[in-house]
């Protein structure tokens, strides 16, 4: 849930000259243009920078096939919530203005090399990709839509967890979205989960973990409880690789770690096994 506390690993430093990107992981300098062309993945150490939902969509969906779904759903403020920094409604409005998104998740349909698929793509830059009533609603509506069309459903998670500004409504989205996934299972409609950096809290403990196939980006942070909370609980330091995609692969929760540039091709290969044979 602590999506606004950026860890050192994820904080970027850029040179003033706007020419270089310094990899936050290995500190290597890469030409900004090259960094962009490399899909914001460090050519040296394979560090995958966070990217937005639009970029993800463009990486995965066949050009010209995207149609947004449930785009009318936007943030609500069920609690009329305010905190030290002011009203949640203002914070949400600012996030909308900054990102151009209506919620922390973009939903719609498109094709992957010709195969029709429904998508829910989370965006960490919208309030830390937090799961709100609106986000849960978009995911659920899109899952139901995928079910009606018998289209495979893909969720790309990037989230610090539930959006506490919406209180219990945000917590309930875990149950709501999982129920929608359960219905897809009943219909034998494929559901693939892609876990990107970070996928934590209530998002890891709901739809993100329930893919027929769980795919992660390299070194993505994936976990339920926060690192600091665990260290306080057990009174000792955690291993460095704890809660990384690689750690989860080894512990049985991830099927495959796939680099960003290979993701579309990998999805296409996998989806072929879920089509009529």
């Amino acid at each position: 849930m602590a999506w606004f506390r950026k860890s050192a690993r994820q904080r970027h430093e850029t040179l003033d000259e706007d020419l270089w990107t310094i990899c936050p992981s290995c500190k290597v300098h890469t030409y900004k243009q090259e960094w962009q062309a490399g899909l914001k993945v460090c050519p040296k150490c394979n560090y995958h920078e966070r990217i937005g939902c639009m970029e993800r969509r463009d990486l995965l969906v066949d050009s010209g096939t995207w149609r947004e779904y449930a785009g009318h759903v936007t943030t609500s403020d069920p609690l009329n919530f305010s905190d030290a920094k002011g009203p949640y409604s203002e914070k949400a409005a600012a996030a909308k203005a900054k990102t151009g998104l209506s919620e922390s998740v973009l939903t719609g349909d498109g094709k992957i090399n010709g195969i029709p698929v429904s998508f829910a793509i989370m965006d960490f830059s919208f309030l830390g990709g937090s799961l709100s009533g609106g986000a849960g609603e978009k995911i659920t509506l899109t899952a139901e839509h995928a079910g009606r069309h018998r289209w495979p459903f893909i969720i790309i998670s990037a989230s610090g967890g539930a959006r506490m500004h919406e209180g219990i409504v945000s917590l309930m989205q875990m149950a709501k979205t999982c129920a929608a996934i359960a219905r897809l299972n009943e219909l034998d409609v494929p559901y693939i989960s892609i876990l990107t950096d970070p996928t934590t809290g209530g998002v890891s403990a709901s739809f993100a973990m329930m893919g027929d196939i769980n795919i992660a980006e390299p070194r993505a942070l994936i976990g339920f409880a926060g690192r600091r909370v665990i260290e306080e609980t057990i009174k000792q330091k955690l291993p460095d690789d704890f809660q990384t995609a690689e750690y989860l692969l080894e512990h049985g929760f991830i099927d495959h770690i796939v680099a960003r540039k290979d993701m579309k091709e990998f999805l296409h290969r996998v989806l072929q096994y879920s089509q009529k044979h």
Partner: protein
Amino acid sequence: MDLDFEKPLEAIEQRIAELKALNNRADVNFDTEIAALERKLQTASKRVYAKLTPWETVQIARHAERPLLRDYIQGLCSEFIELHGDRCFGDDQGIIGGFATLRDQRVMLIGHQKGKTIEEKIKANFGMASPDGYRKAMRLMHLAAKYKLPIVSFIDTPGAYPGFEAEARGQAEAIARNLTEMSLLPVPVVVIVTGEGGSGGAIGIGVGNVVLMLSNAVYSVISPEGCASILWRDGSKAPLAASALKITAAALQEQGVIDEIILEPEGGAHRNPAAAINATGDAIVEQLRRLKKISSKRLIEQRYEKFSKIGRFKK
């Protein structure tokens, strides 16, 4: 063990006790004084509990003498056959469950266990369940489905256990699986939030056809302390966060999450556990009687609709 806002009541209670001890000794009679004090206590009590702040409610929900799962089982069930194990790794004590005869109803009863004594608390991890606890609960719920037994789930947890092993063995996966599979259970599921409904650890056994809640229980996406330290950058602002999060039974009923509030006796469940337990039993049995008339298919649909509605977008 009284809470701060209960101090005035405690003073009156103490005075009553003193007078009762003296009464009719040495031919002095205090009946009139005692009756007056008792009226005073009642009035004061009404005043205090009528305007509890959310933060005060949190204190009551966590009160050391508040009835726990074992008290409900003892008070309501003529029989409880505990069943053990997740068939995979262990037998977590943070969640327990088994066959129970609750009043006249045969059910599968599951719930968080906090523990009374310090040994019990440690064994149960203070009610913070591990993946094996959630997996055991799900196994028992599938067994209930096979035996066509209604499920009664008691929620009282600070949250799922944030430990190293719990994380390594899939705390996230275990909760996610429960949320998914509970949604398809073909039997009635009655959930009762009796104390603390702590986030993912609570909802992990909380997908019910109805969700009941004791009047001084709380149910929240994050603890007030956690919320305060994040959004106010100051843990001591927990009372503020408790208000902002709207975590009391009444507020949650307004939000459509809670279907029915079980009224605790005056002064809270810890002041009269028997009455609280009894009221809880009444509410559960009424729901079971109603839900048992509904077909499996409709139960699954109704549960889906209940959660679908929460956060439904209206424009």
